[in-house]
């Protein structure tokens, strides 16, 4: 689906808002969403980046009937971060920002949904400050294995065999590592 605003880029942010019993939908690409937010246009329309990210607008409205079965935690306006004191209202007025690292735990339900929409996964598989191998975590390892397998298939399709060989070796090493982490061998689908 194309962005409602520029009609050029793919819409990656989808907002629904209920006002006066009517559902308004807005489909934006990331750039237009950010620009609109900067110009205050989203605010004027009753949308802002926080709503876009967290769907707070819908959650805060108890009468919103559209596709909503908000669980209690999400719709509870009383959640307050014990570390920085931010609540839903503050999140809404903060352009999608959070108050402190602890907010990720406090608002985990809504942040989880936001991450599903804007990110590629829910698990960090990159570097760590303690320099331990991020792939010592089985979940992260599985993600990397899936990705490497796709990459290998793509390289074979493109007949780039030298690179494919390197990729295959990497895949084997990752599979070995997963086996060592899970000695009972839940890696049956790795071939």
């Amino acid at each position, binding site marked *: 689906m194309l962005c409602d605003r520029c009609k050029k880029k793919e819409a990656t942010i989808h907002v629904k808002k209920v006002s006066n019993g009517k559902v308004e939908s807005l489909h934006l690409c990331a750039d237009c969403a950010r620009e609109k937010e900067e110009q205050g246009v989203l605010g004027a329309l009753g949308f802002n980046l926080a709503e876009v990210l967290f769907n707070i607008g819908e959650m805060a409205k108890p009468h919103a009937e559209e596709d909503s079965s908000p669980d209690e935690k999400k719709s509870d306006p009383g959640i307050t971060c014990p570390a920085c004191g931010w609540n839903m209202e503050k999140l809404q007025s903060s352009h999608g920002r959070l108050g402190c690292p602890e907010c990720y735990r406090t608002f985990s339900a809504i942040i989880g949904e936001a991450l599903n929409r804007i990110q590629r996964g829910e698990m960090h598989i990159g*570097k760590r400050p303690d320099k331990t191998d991020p792939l010592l975590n089985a979940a992260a390892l599985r993600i990397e294995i899936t990705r490497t397998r796709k990459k290998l298939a793509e390289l074979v399709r493109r007949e780039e065999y030298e690179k494919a060989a390197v990729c295959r070796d990497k895949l084997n090493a990752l599979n070995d590592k997963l086996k060592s982490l899970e000695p009972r061998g839940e890696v049956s689908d790795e071939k």
Partner: protein
Amino acid sequence: MKSDAVKRLLASPVSFLADSGPDEDIAISSRIRLARNLRGYPFPCAAEPEQLTEVCDLVSAAANASGSLGCPDCFSFDMAELPVVDREILLERRLASRDFIDHPEGSRLLVRSDESCSIMINEEDQLRIQVLAPGFQLDKVWKTINALDDELAAHLDYAFDDQLGYLTCCPTNVGTGMRASVMLHLPGLVMTNKITATIHGINKLNLAVRGIFGEGSDNQGNLFQVSNQVTLGETESGIVENLSQVIRQLITHEKAARVQLLERDQASLLDHVGRSYGILRHSYKLSSKEALNCLSGLRVGVDMGLFNNVDIHRVNEMFLTIHPAHLQKNAGRTLSSAERDVVRAAYCRSQLAK
């Protein structure tokens, strides 16, 4: 004292523009930034003034202790102490973001003397570590910033979560906290009307395309910044690899577009280059936008080897120096917009008369 430091900065060549880098005719520069925060402190948007000061001091101490950025012999700017024009200089040299210079209270900028690395303290996140290099060399930039990040991490307690990675003020950066980007000069794709389709294609790959100074600066001087959007669920080297692959393709497409122009519409291409040179060499009033667009044309001519009195580094330097704060700093006084246009034209004439 601080203003002296800005003068010193101004006098030195910008390494990402003065040095040559791979594929520099099309890829102007490569940049990676990492967002980091400290455990136990609120993000800058929720912090008290004394907490902001504390974070500034902690990061400075970590940089000094680790010798990162060449500290303590690095530039250190307390942003609130700088006049507006000096802050704008830092923006134009791509050492600071617009948001950072517009909210100077409680924030500090550390810059290595060659301007290749910097840390914005208390931007949206407490640390925005940046490494900038000429040409297309994301791999090298990643190695540099990874090492820099490790040095700092040895002295700082980063806010990190096993599942979510580096915790950032905005969830759009959580995970790696990494934004990698390459600045490309794409006049061939613009002139052959392929740029819209190209940008559309890039967006589908979860990459963002922006103008020279980020959002709202579309297509000035045919300069485009391509960057990753996703920060969670991918490794840093995966992000670099994916982006690099797209950049390589874009460079190939741009080269093909230029060949196509040369073969099918040589007169139009030469006319564009010639007019651009003519305006820069002979005009007496030049707006920033016109100058950027003409410099783009001049750059194409230089890439094609049409000029023996101008090289790519001169053009790159002009790309920087025609901006308002640099013009005013060099003139030594505040200039109105109309005055700037006159001074800008005089500067361009003098550069091409050499």
